[in-house]
């Protein structure tokens, strides 16, 4: 199974046609896959809160959005999640590279990893953690759930899920 292709297929199958990204090495493959899809408009952001603004506008314009980013972005976007996405009740699937977990080579990444789930829990954001490759089978249901409840939903994908950091 090509995991990048599977993720892009699930996005398209759920009518997600507007995707913004801030890169992470673990996400490079899926970002490249999304960039070449004709049925997805890919708009890179300079910062994740900017990306959430783009997604909010796209959704109000009639398109289903998604954001792809690193877990460090939770530190950047708490205000935007609370006062824009949640306050106006908007759906937003967040596919997140969960740096600082098992098989992480960069120590500093652990410093945000230890806060990631606590921050998401504090925000009452439904959170899923993909650790094994087969966990991706849940993505389709998570996307359906996100647009059912009109909430931001976090999908944390760690290095083990991606096959080891930089080992892909």
């Amino acid at each position: 199974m090509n995991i990048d292709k599977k993720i892009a297929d699930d996005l398209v199958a759920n009518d997600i046609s507007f995707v913004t990204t801030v890169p992470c090495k673990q996400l490079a493959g899926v970002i490249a896959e999304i960039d070449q899809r004709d049925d997805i408009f890919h708009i890179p952001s300079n910062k994740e809160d900017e990306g959430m603004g783009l997604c909010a506008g796209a959704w109000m314009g009639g398109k289903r959005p998604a954001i792809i980013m690193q877990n460090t972005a939770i530190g950047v976007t708490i205000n935007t999640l609370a006062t824009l996405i949640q306050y106006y009740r908007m759906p937003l699937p967040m596919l997140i590279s969960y740096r600082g977990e098992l098989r992480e080579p960069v120590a500093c990444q652990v410093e945000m990893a230890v806060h990631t789930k606590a921050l998401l829990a504090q925000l009452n954001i439904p959170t899923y953690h993909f650790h094994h490759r087969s966990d991706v089978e849940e993505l389709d249901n998570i996307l359906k759930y996100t647009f059912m409840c009109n909430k931001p939903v976090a999908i944390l994908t760690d290095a083990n899920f991606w096959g080891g950091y930089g080992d892909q």
Partner: protein
Amino acid sequence: MIRSEILKEIAPILRDQLVVCNIGIPSQELHAIDDQPTNFYMLGTMGLASSIGLGLALSQPKPVIVIDGDGSILTNLGTLPTIANNVAENYILLIIDNGSYGSTGDQPTYAGRKTSLSKMAQAAGCERVIECNAAETGRVLQEALDAKQMTIIVSKCESGNAKMPVITMDPVVIRDRFMKAVQA
């Protein structure tokens, strides 16, 4: 002229258009001057009006006017390259540049000192950038709508706020009626 005087003057142009309005006193002023279902008021999230408007413009064909401020653009400067590199011809970004953070007590911004937002927009790659004085705003805005070309307007005006009530409308109501207006 101060921002509220500009908004009063351009209200007839804004009335039939989709408008995304910046957080704080700008939204309170627009709401008090001419509340419309086609107005999306930001109640929080400093800096993101231009991004919300761009996402909206890229996702549907109607013109979108963003009413933003110099302080808000400075908060989210990465927006200018994103706008420049993802051209939406139905997108107009009106930066009302009064050189101050109006909603927090008129503290000066760098745009009122050495920094030129119109030059920054040009350097970011935006192609149609027009700087004007406050009194010219209505004409420049109408020309931008008629041009059907992505336009960044920097309207230089004086610092100051009108005394307007806080918006008490529920955010989900603001969003829902706006989405219905988008689809209408």
